């Protein structure tokens, strides 16, 4: 029982990472109806920007905010410059451009900051919380920040005119355009917000997994898994999905032989496939119904 409790708490802590990433995934899915495979690399790049700012002596929270601002602008700029011209191209072309973006960001980060692993500071300290050594202060802080972002998103989408316009633009672009919403800019805004949330996720994750250009691939996969568990259309579901994936991963690792150490990524695969087969819309998502 003691072991079970410990593993659940540890799972919550890693789940925080996935929840962060899943939130960014859901965010961009809401805005553009695509899964952005370059999302992890965008977050990684933002984190490197934060690292550079810190290295130049900028205080942590200032660097945190500046990075978010830069990421927001960069995300919107990527949409305007790279994706707007191919707006009408088939889905597969989009996927290829995501891949191109992935390669560019990864290679650029390695070129500018090289491929060595770098430590990243945490603003919360690393002292264990509750004196048990399971959940560190940083992990608790990470979970708290994730929840704050979630509340912010909820309020933004639910109660602000811009949030409503964004939802309309994503849900039905043509009708949205007819009632005077500038759909193109809403999409750019969505990209910006996704990049900003990705930056937050990256900066929170980096102290745990360390900073290097390919730190994100595995985490992105778990982020996808979490987003799928929660439903790709529900930010709250994504956060909950993140935590449950984290807990599940830890429990499976503890109680099933071989799997824990060697099969971390296949767990995500199994989760994704199982959830999609049993409940294609995820636990909290809306099922897409097609009109004939």
């Amino acid at each position, binding site marked *: 029982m003691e072991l079970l409790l410990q593993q659940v708490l540890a799972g919550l802590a890693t789940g925080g990472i996935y929840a962060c990433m899943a939130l960014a995934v859901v965010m961009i899915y809401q805005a553009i109806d695509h899964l952005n495979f370059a999302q992890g690399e965008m977050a990684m790049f933002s984190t490197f920007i934060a690292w550079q700012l810190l290295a130049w002596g900028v205080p942590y929270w200032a660097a945190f905010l500046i990075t978010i601002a830069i990421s927001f602008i960069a995300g919107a700029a990527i949409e305007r410059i790279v994706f707007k*011209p191919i707006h009408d191209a*088939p889905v597969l072309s989009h996927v*290829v451009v995501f891949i191109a973006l992935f390669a560019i960001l*990864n290679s650029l980060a390695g070129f500018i900051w090289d491929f060595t692993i770098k430590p990243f500071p945490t603003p919360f300290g690393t002292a264990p919380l509750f004196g048990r050594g399971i959940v560190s202060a940083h992990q608790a802080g990470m979970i708290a920040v994730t929840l704050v972002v979630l509340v912010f998103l909820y309020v933004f989408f639910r109660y602000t005119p811009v949030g409503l316009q964004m939802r309309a633009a994503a849900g039905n672009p043509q009708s949205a355009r007819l009632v005077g919403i500038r759909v193109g800019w809403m999409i750019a805004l969505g990209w910006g917000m996704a990049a900003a949330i990705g930056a937050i996720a990256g900066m929170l994750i980096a102290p745990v997994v360390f900073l290097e250009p390919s730190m994100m691939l595995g985490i992105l996969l778990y982020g996808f898994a979490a987003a799928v568990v929660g439903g790709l259309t529900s930010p709250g579901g994504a956060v909950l999905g993140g935590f449950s994936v984290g807990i599940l991963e830890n429990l499976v690792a503890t109680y099933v032989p071989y799997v824990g150490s060697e099969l971390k990524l*296949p767990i995500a695969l199994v989760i994704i496939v199982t959830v*999609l087969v049993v409940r294609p819309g995820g636990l909290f998502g809306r099922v897409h119904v097609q009109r004939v």
Partner: protein
Amino acid sequence: MEAAETLAVARARPALTLGRAILLVGILLAIAVPFAAKSFLVFQLTLVLVYAIAICGLNLLTGFNGQFSLGHGAFYAIGAYTAAILMEHGGVSYVWTIPAAGLVCFVAGFLFGLPALRLEAIYLALATFALAVAAPQILKLSPIEHWTGGVQGIVILKPDAPFGLPLNQDQWLYFFTLGVALAMFFAAHNLVHSRTGRAIMAIRDNPIAARSMGINTALYKTLTFGVSALYTGVAGALGAIVVQFVAPDSFTFSLSIAFLVGLVVGGVGWIPGALFGGAFVLFVPNIAEHISKGLSGAAYGVILILLIYLMPSGAGGFFQLLANRAAKWRRRPREERT
């Protein structure tokens, strides 16, 4: 997808004589090349053919059946490992590993196609993405290390030319691969132009209408997944024999990505496009490396983006455009006369 449709329709119409002539010249050139080129280039061209077979398999699934896959690297890995294990532990001749790998991958693809039935476009992309990322770890698994060789992988010996043919090993493998590739492409062409092929494309264009017309959607979709995996598995087995080595880290996510890139570059829903795709996948990263060593990834990405801007529907769409222009140009004087 629309571009793919017009392509598929256009292929069925005339210009066959021209197409046949191009095909014939192409085959003759392909036969002549290994006697003129250096050994390394022959090796590279063999790999282009191998990738082309894999991309052709992906094209059957994505281009003609409309199911996305970011995970074909996993099937390529299964094919490669089947061949390597059969040769290493079973003492099977390399020729027989090819159908065996195809069969194993067909079953694997069919089984993966079953849950894929319930997944719509983006979700299927996601599930296959997970498959691709997970594949290297599954291959490293310790309980099966005896067979797979773990992280070290398996080393294979290159076969000699049979019947005392005056060819070196690279040349022989090239011809062997060329033969398999021609057979596979011919089969794919026939499949697409058959009743089954039309059913497969009907499912892509409108699944609900296809079902109402009596097409067994579930069966055709899973079968297409199986056949697609079969192609990729055969390519994997050939690839393993050509490279003489299999290891988990040769089958990472980037391999699946390379197939997808090759598919889009070659032209979705156009079978010969796979050759262009294969060549792109093999040669362009090298070109990118020549542009800048440190920034090769970035150069590759920029090339990709430019290519999508210039030819949004790949080489297939580009040739289609040229053909349309030519037809218009030919028709013009006649219209002026009337």
